[in-house]
């Protein structure tokens, strides 16, 4: 995982949620093909947009967080602003479509 992407767990989730920045979360698993398609795009977005907090959540390790966001399909991308979910989408998406979720 790139330096710009934060590994989010239930231990640091509170801080992530309360960040002043817009938060982009990628719920994924290592064994999921579409997640691996999206992974490098998420890393690119993180590197190019330091004003956005980009985090990855491994659904195998963080089942409580996955359940809290009703994740039933991966990859699932969630955008948080001031602690609220403002956008959520399922499935692999092109970079531009992910960026437009942040607008």
């Amino acid at each position, binding site marked *: 995982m790139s330096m710009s992407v934060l590994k989010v767990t239930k231990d640091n989730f509170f801080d992530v949620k309360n960040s002043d920045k817009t938060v982009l979360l990628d719920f994924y698993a290592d*064994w999921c093909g579409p997640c691996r*398609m999206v992974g490098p*795009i998420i890393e690119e977005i993180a590197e190019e947009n330091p004003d956005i907090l980009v985090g990855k959540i491994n659904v*195998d390790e963080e089942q409580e967080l996955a359940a809290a966001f009703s994740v*039933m*399909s991966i990859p699932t991308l969630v955008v948080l602003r001031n602690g609220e979910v403002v956008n959520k989408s399922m499935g692999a*998406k092109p*970079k*531009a479509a992910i960026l437009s979720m942040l607008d």
Partner: protein
Amino acid sequence: MGADMEHIYDVAIIGGGPAGYTAALYSSRAGFDTVILEKMSVGGQMTLTDVIDNYPGFPQGIDGFVLSSDMQKGAERFGTKTMYDEVVSVDLKSEIKEIKTAFSGSVFSKTIIIATGANPRELGLENEQELLGRGVHYCAHCDGRFYKDKVVVVVGGGNSAVSDALYLSHLCKKVYLVHRRDVLRATKIYHDPIMKADNIEFCYNSVLGRIDTDNDKVSSVTMIDTKTSIKREVECDAVFISIGRKPVTEFLSGQLELDSGGYIVADESTKTNVDGVFAVGDVRTKVLRQVVTAVSDGAVAAHYAEEYLSR
């Protein structure tokens, strides 16, 4: 990288899967100015497979993701450019062909190789799209784990449906396999293990009529017997659809000849009905859709593109 109005490529390839990157490898290695337009990330359907056992040269099998990025690196070593953008439409009428992208304007090229592959085919039920990822799924290996100890329905009777049903049978309490014919289309190698799984119920001569929800989640499906028209409702938590693939050709808006299944008509030469336009890999009408036949198409298309360019 943005599009350049002044620039005219020799070869523009739409789709960065194995067919596309092999065409790119051959054409850039032959000295042609080559670009690949890829919508999302390289590899196409190949990246959705953990291990590819039937691509020769890898005795232990090869990870689809690794093979994809290696194919990309191989082509880029000879100067292929990869442009990440979605192709919205093409204009194939002129000598210099135009590819319109969603975000970076138009790309111009003397030849075009179409390598867009295929996506999962949908059932076409009314609420299918709306339930996507919330009880309706196309990737058992991705989403099966969310239905541990639950009841699921798999639709289809080919290799992928049967392998999905088998995979889900290890996780789920019960699996209904709904198939419209009276016999599975899957190859023999799958038959033994699936017949041994005691939590799979086979529903032959059946199609899915509707998917019902309760509290925004899938709660049941109604199957219809194709012979008797008798309906049967079964409770379930998810539906996994595995009824084959749909070639990606919408952006062509009728400029190339398609067969009845929607695949681009081109023989082993990969030449389409438009001069200088080639179709390779899963999007082309062909008998066997495999990585190995896709890469073969790529090499052939690059050969004929070269021939066309040196006229």
